[in-house]
């Protein structure tokens, strides 16, 4: 790019790096702090001045072994995995079929119905939370897995996202498949799903994150310990250790690391889909 050189170009570039480094430190230090605190001896006091990094020979992994004897994190992990995978699978199925209908099938009232869907995106979750809870309570779904899963298996945002992507598939593909005698279900599963992998992955990642880290709904539905999710387990563990005695921070931090780790690992692998999904939600509004 052609640009006249100015005296302030270098300072601006340096300022840019300075901002990046400062922001990076603020972003990263809390995570390092979480990790190193979890490696301190259980129940130890914080040092002052604060030590962000502790030498490897002082690392103490006993918090983690202790944690798994104190709290059934294995059970919580299995619960979270079970609930999350079924929710993600449900959303992918329900949203993609609906998106195919809205994007590519020509039925009477389609656009009016879609408008109704979009209008519901304005409703804050808190408005429906109370009646939803009362309904689920009335159905006897409190303390059940389906009470935790079924309310989350569809999302209007997901339908919107997939519909945008399905609209980009050339109509010729659909017509060609129809001429070959394929039914709509075959076209949907053999043509549209394979062609829209990235959008499906984006929705999958969003649904995964939303469900994995959800606190409010499990807090209301999973009253019994054997149903708790990791997030809920961490919240309860944190509350129980700090209620009567001084909080055992190294132990709590170890629990936080255990809860965060799966999400971070998935994020590292699926980063692209996150960023694409968010850009899409921003641009299309």
């Amino acid at each position, binding site marked *: *790019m*052609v640009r*006249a050189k*100015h005296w302030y170009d270098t300072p601006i570039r340096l300022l*840019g790096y300075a*901002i990046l480094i400062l*922001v*990076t430190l603020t*972003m*990263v*230090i*809390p*995570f390092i*702090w*979480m990790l190193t605190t979890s490696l301190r001896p259980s129940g130890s006091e*914080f040092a*002052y*001045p*604060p030590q962000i990094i502790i030498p490897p020979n002082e690392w103490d992994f006993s918090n983690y072994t202790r944690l798994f004897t104190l709290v059934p994190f294995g059970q919580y992990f299995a619960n979270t995995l079970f609930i999350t995978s079924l929710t993600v699978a449900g959303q992918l199925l*329900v*949203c993609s*079929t*609906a998106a195919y*209908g809205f994007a590519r*099938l*020509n*039925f*009477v009232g*389609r656009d009016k119905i879609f408008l109704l869907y979009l*209008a519901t*995106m*304005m*409703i804050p979750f*808190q*408005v*429906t*939370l*109370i*009646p*939803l809870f*009362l309904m689920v309570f009335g159905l006897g779904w409190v303390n059940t897995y389906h009470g935790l899963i079924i309310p989350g298996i*569809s999302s*209007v945002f997901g339908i919107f996202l997939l519909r945008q992507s399905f609209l980009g598939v050339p109509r010729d593909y659909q017509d060609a498949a129809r001429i070959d005698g394929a039914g709509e279900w075959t076209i949907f599963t053999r043509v549209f799903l394979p062609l829209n992998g990235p959008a499906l992955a984006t929705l999958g990642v969003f649904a995964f994150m939303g469900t994995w*880290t959800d*606190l*409010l709904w499990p807090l209301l539905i999973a009253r019994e310990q054997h149903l708790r999710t990791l997030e809920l387990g*961490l*919240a309860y563990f944190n509350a129980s250790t700090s209620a009567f005695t001084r909080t055992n921070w190294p132990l*709590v*931090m170890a629990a936080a690391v255990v*809860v*965060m780790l799966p*999400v*971070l690992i998935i*994020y590292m692998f699926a*980063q692209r889909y*996150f960023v694409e999904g968010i*850009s899409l939600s*921003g*641009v299309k509004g």
Partner: protein
Amino acid sequence: MAYARGEPRPFTAVQKKPNFWQRFWSRSNERVGYLFILPSFIHLIVFLVIPLGFSLYLSFTDWRGPNFQNAPFIGAENYQFLLGDRRFWNAMKNSIYFTLLSVPLGMVISLLVALVMNQNLKGVYIFRTLFFMPVISSWVAVSVVWITLLDPQVGILNYVLEGLGLPPANWLGDPLTAMPAVVMISIWKGLGFNMVIWLAGLQAIPQELHEAAAIDGASRWQAFRRITIPLLSPTTFFLAITGVIGALQVFSSVYVITKGGPRGSTDVVVFRIYQRAFEEFEFGLASSQAWVLFAVIFSLTVVQVWYRRRQGEETMF
């Protein structure tokens, strides 16, 4: 087809628009579409539309649970009560305070970062990965970490402030600083999200405009003022409106960090709704609070749609 007034029109057979049933049974109606949307439609009705109506009804009752038999209909009494409810107004005030503090600050900081990230610096992807980590983190884990970072005795923040010669604070323990601290954590957590949207907006600005400006001798600042800012305005508006709507619904951070305290200084509207419903079991009153919030958010959405229509943009509604 449109005709100018007075222009002669060709004679055509008058075609009546077929009615719903005629269209429904016509050959071009791909009725299988209803089957495709059926699961999502049932879900929408059962888990969204019915609860919405139910919630509106509840807001006119004095239902305190658990039996639906003792749910006396009391008209607008809940709403009248809210007018004089000091805790509700305090929560309203706190929500607005949170919004006014977190949305502009969060937007400016993330724009600054996005501008730097847009400069083709080396290693931008690593930064993007790191900045996004808080976005995907769970609120409970984040709160645990920040509560210790903000500790008045041994926390890092006070240590840094002391190093800079600034006075330390009892961040989460002082009603004056608790809300700014919650805002700070929220900005920290949302920075990556806003930044990605800013970046998408920045990258949509044609490079040629900046090149032309450079050839004309415009300075970086002039180019920023006259090209970047105006062309970013849809993004700015999107972030402002969704930011305000999100900020008015803030709950998780308050629930896990301060539980509304100290002395009600971080008690926000949604936290109030939560406590009214699930701790005090006043489902009717809680529902009316939710509807007041809904009304506010609804009007903001209308403003957004109106603005985007005026800009000639395609909108969802």
